[in-house]
């Protein structure tokens, strides 16, 4: 049952002479919550960008196996929109909402890749298009209900509070129907109350069967949420394992706190 849906092997990314990712190995199993941690500049966001097609990795392989299917698809070299179509959706570290659109419309954009209406459909607004539009609105509203933003559906995204904007990013990603959700520092800048709500939201999403890979600096959140943790430093994986194992891992402590001079 625990077959990996995402398997990354030997992933390397060079920016000129700088090796941002160095033969990274990582896997995510179906239904798991996996955390990726590491000091600033370790290459976590670069890794996400490689995964979602924003960067093209120098070497290595990214294999995605949709749940219930035995065929693997390589994501390497795909355009970001195709990666999303394959079932991988992400949020951004620095919030990238469509601020001039309403909350509902932001989520509706997420439905784009699962719908079809085009020029002619838009102009003639035939029965199929009308039905599709109705479905887009309804499913978007259902997602907003889930993340607790239904009351603010008609507000402009820019007028939301910081925590709500983070949740809207998650809602927008969910609208693309991913089976693996990538969250890039979802709790950054949140107060304890908001972090607590986020914790609950991520658990709920996970309960629906979605696999989650998250980058996070809030160790309390990471330790309580994740099934497994990967630790990165200088583009390399330095440790992996259950939260309890990571807590005691000397390499991790060294990466975060530095080496003891006396030792």
């Amino acid at each position, binding site marked *: 049952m625990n077959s990996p849906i995402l398997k990354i092997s030997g992933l390397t990314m060079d920016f000129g002479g700088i090796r941002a990712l160095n033969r990274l190995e990582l896997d995510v199993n179906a239904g798991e919550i996996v955390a990726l941690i590491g000091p600033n500049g370790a290459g976590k966001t670069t890794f996400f960008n490689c995964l*979602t*097609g*924003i960067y093209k990795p120098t070497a290595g392989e990214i294999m995605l196996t949709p749940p219930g299917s035995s065929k693997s698809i390589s994501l390497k070299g795909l*355009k*970001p*929109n195709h990666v*999303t*179509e394959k079932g991988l*959706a*992400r949020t*951004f570290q620095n919030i*990238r*909402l*469509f*601020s*001039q*659109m*309403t909350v*509902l*419309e932001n989520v*509706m*954009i*997420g439905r*784009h*890749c*699962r*719908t079809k*209406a*085009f*020029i002619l*459909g*838009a*102009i003639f*607004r035939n029965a199929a*298009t009308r039905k*599709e*539009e*109705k479905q*887009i*609105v*309804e499913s*978007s*509203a259902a997602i907003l209900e889930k993340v607790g933003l*239904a009351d603010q*559906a*008609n507000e402009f995204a820019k007028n939301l509070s910081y925590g709500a904007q983070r949740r809207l990013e998650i809602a*927008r*990603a969910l*609208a*693309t129907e991913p089976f693996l959700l990538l969250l890039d520092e979802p709790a950054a800048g949140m107060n304890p109350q908001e972090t607590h709500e986020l914790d609950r939201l991520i658990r709920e999403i996970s309960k629906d069967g979605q696999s989650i890979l998250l980058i996070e600096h809030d160790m309390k959140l990471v330790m309580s949420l994740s099934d497994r943790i990967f630790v990165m430093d200088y583009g390399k994986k330095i440790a992996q394992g259950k939260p309890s194992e990571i807590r005691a891992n000397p390499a991790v402590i060294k990466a975060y706190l530095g080496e003891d001079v006396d030792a």
Partner: protein
Amino acid sequence: MSGLKVIKKALLTSLWFVFLTFPIMVIKVDPVERIIRWRWQNSLYVALGTFCVYLLAQFILQRKIKKLESQTEQDSLPKESVIHRILANPKQRNLLIVALSAVILAFPLFSSSYQTNVMITALMYVVLGLGLNIVVGMAGLLDLGYVAFYAVGAYSYALLNHHFQLGFWAVLPIGGGLAALFGILLGFPVLRLRGDYLAIVTLGFGEIIRLILENWSEFSKGPSGISNISRPGLFGIELSLDSAIIYLYYLMILFVIVTIFIVNRLQDSRLGRAWIALREDEIACQAMGIDKRKTKLVAFSLGAFWAGIIGVVFAAKTTFVNPASFTFLESAIILSIVVLGGMGSIVGVIFGAMILILLPEYLRALSEYRMLAFGAILVAMMVFRPQGLISNIRRTYRFEKTHSLNVK
């Protein structure tokens, strides 16, 4: 600012203006008598004029600042303009539509053919503005070479009519289609560009098309252009010049209505949302599964399509085309229509086109100061209403808890 201070500042400003305008307003060389005339009274007019304008501008600014200060935080959204308030009220809106359509339909009956001709031009620019609005206003791609597509449409009618005697109605879709094709052609190399870089490349593209038309004489007859293009036909009936103009006027009304209808529908569709998302944030847009390439190309080609259609109409209206009609200035005017009217706003673009095309015509009374006045009006507009005449209040999707779709 206290009153005395303002007056002092106004005095200084007017003196400064007298100094600046001295060479053109006071000195006049009379080449016949070989003397210099000193028109000192002009400097007095300049001083007085500047003084008054300065005080007026200060007064308006002060009032605006006071209004802003008194506004609470709640009113951070743009205030609804008069037009929007009228449009929001169905009774007033219907009245307005009936009155407007009566005036529009009766217009050629009580005005001279010169007036009708001017109005046809204005209507053509309405459609051009709406077409460019798709590219600039909705998709956020700054296109400075829009006139190239207009030229493609005009020349496709001119050439097909000249060589193959094809009629207006046959060429209309061909011209539009060809322009759309050129839109895609331009779209491919600029897919990765944004902002200033995109503007420069599109500007270059517009010039390339014009220069080809100017220099490839075997193909386009060069700067001398193509004349004797047939006017649009009406079921094979020969029309006199006057009735041909009236016919073209009603045709343009039809085009404007169809364009408004289609642009409006596009704006409220899945595609329209994708354009707005693309304008807001390209990376997030792609991460949400929107095909950036396809969405941009569609915006370019749809925008170009309208330009091509109007190009055909232009060739049919003037019965003569040459490359001089498709200079950068045309692109700039169409872009000003979109910006002045209010980016992304359909009503705004219509107003913008009317003002930018009709104003210079009716300012002819001011003879040589016409363009000066026109420029001053534009500058004043952008200072006092930077969001355009009628800013775009987009129809947003509203969702009520009753699970019903309400498009407001």
